[in-house]
């Protein structure tokens, strides 16, 4: 990223000071803290697994406002900040905090601005927040957009588990006494939010690992005779493919069908499973290597296309395939290994450094 900024700055003839903050955290630190009970279980009640931490591609911690504050208050003429993983509201909150704003208002403003114009109707574009001693005001930059009490309140709740208490790095934003007041057609005033500092220093860790390689195929079924027995048919497809693909038979590879027009979006919990007059089938294969995934996907696609079924009238093919080639290797598949809160007392997190780039 810094190299990219450097090359753009050179191209444009700028000389820039870049503040750099890394969010990476060492696996050994996580393993050691996990061992001594300093990692909290996930909402599922699960602790991270040691082997999965060891196999993680990288692990980061979510930074709060502190590293941004350090840069903003450093007295250096910083032009650009490049930061690793940060809590979405942190950069905006830090700017307000650096100017002495109330922490409750700074964090609430940061939360609302984290997605720019997503707090406006229609969403999109930018939004200007002006923070005062005991409230902040929001107005969208696009003349066609409005902030409303509902649109701002909606973004306050966005992607959070609870509507009233919004935990983040360093503490919890309590909006249970917040007020949202329409000032005019396009502006909203927010007041009453409070920031409650956490009793101990914690960070949220995020880590992922590669769990396999994926190949997909996609097509449609329009034949009502086949649609009426689709689950049985797809079960037999899987059985057929297993016969020629030992990794699938052994459970080391996966073949999953997503049936659009029936339950492609909700799967097992779909309350209305009556299929449409045509359905789309996405075949998803995950195996230990791309070549193996490709092979299983080809076998599966051919089986969907040609496996016979009871009452079959269309004996030339079962599957309308829009794309050529028909199987598509789409690369590595990742999975979270960590999304857990860890005690961070005594850790040298988020080191800040400065670089000169450009001419």
């Amino acid at each position, binding site marked *: 990223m810094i190299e990219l900024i450097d090359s753009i700055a050179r191209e444009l003839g700028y000389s820039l000071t870049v503040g750099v903050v890394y969010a990476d955290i060492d696996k050994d630190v996580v393993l050691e803290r996990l061992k001594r009970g300093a990692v909290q279980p996930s*909402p*599922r009640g699960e602790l991270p697994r040691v082997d999965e931490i060891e196999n993680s591609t990288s692990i980061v911690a979510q930074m709060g406002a502190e590293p941004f504050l350090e840069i903003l208050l450093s007295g250096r003429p910083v032009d650009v900040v490049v930061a690793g993983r940060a809590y979405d509201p942190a950069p905006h909150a830090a700017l307000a905090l650096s100017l002495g704003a109330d922490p409750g208002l700074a964090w609430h403003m940061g939360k609302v601005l984290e997605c720019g114009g997503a707090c406006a109707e229609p969403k999109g574009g930018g939004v200007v927040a002006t923070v005062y001693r005991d409230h902040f005001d929001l107005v969208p930059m696009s003349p066609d957009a409005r902030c409303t009490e*509902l649109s701002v*309140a909606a973004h306050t709740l966005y*992607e959070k588990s609870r*509507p009233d208490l919004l935990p983040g790095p360093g503490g919890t934003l309590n909006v249970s006494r917040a007020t949202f007041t329409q000032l005019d057609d396009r502006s909203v005033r927010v007041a009453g939010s409070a920031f409650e500092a956490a009793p101990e220093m914690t960070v949220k860790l995020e880590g992922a690992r590669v*769990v396999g390689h994926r190949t997909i195929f996609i097509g449609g079924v329009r034949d009502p005779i086949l649609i009426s027995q689709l689950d049985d048919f797809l079960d037999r497809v899987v059985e057929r493919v297993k016969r020629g693909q030992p990794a699938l038979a052994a459970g080391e590879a996966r073949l999953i069908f997503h049936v659009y027009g029936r339950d492609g979006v909700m799967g097992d919990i779909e*309350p209305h499973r009556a299929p449409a007059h045509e359905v789309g089938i996405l075949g*998803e294969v995950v195996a230990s290597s791309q070549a193996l995934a490709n092979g299983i996907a080809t076998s599966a696609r051919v089986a969907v296309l040609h496996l016979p079924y009871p009452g079959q009238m269309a004996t030339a093919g079962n599957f309308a395939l829009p794309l050529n080639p028909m199987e598509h290797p789409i690369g590595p598949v990742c999975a*979270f290994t960590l999304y857990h809160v860890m005690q961070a007392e005594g850790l040298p997190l988020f080191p800040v450094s400065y670089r000169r780039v450009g001419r």
Partner: protein
Amino acid sequence: MPETRSLSELAKVIRSKNAGPWEITFDVMFPTREAYELVRDSGVLTRQLIADLYSTSLADVKTCMFFDPALAFKATILRTGSQGSVGERDTFGAQQHAPLLSVAIPVRPR
């Protein structure tokens, strides 16, 4: 039989989204205090209803509450499977709200 209105007729926003990789959260927001209070006081949007709509256990409905300052209802359930990974159906959890749209809310005849 009391007269009913669907939640989609009474609310302005009905949506779902991930709240981190372990949870999906549902937001229902109302255009007026009157509509909000009608739904809140109907007692229809309960933890049990959310568990039934999403075929999950009561224990896995982590949040189910009305929030007066925002004229909003929020429910949060545990996600199954591995978010963004093998077998994922909705990476952002953005299309899991649909069963809420048709929830019937009794309204008093005028």
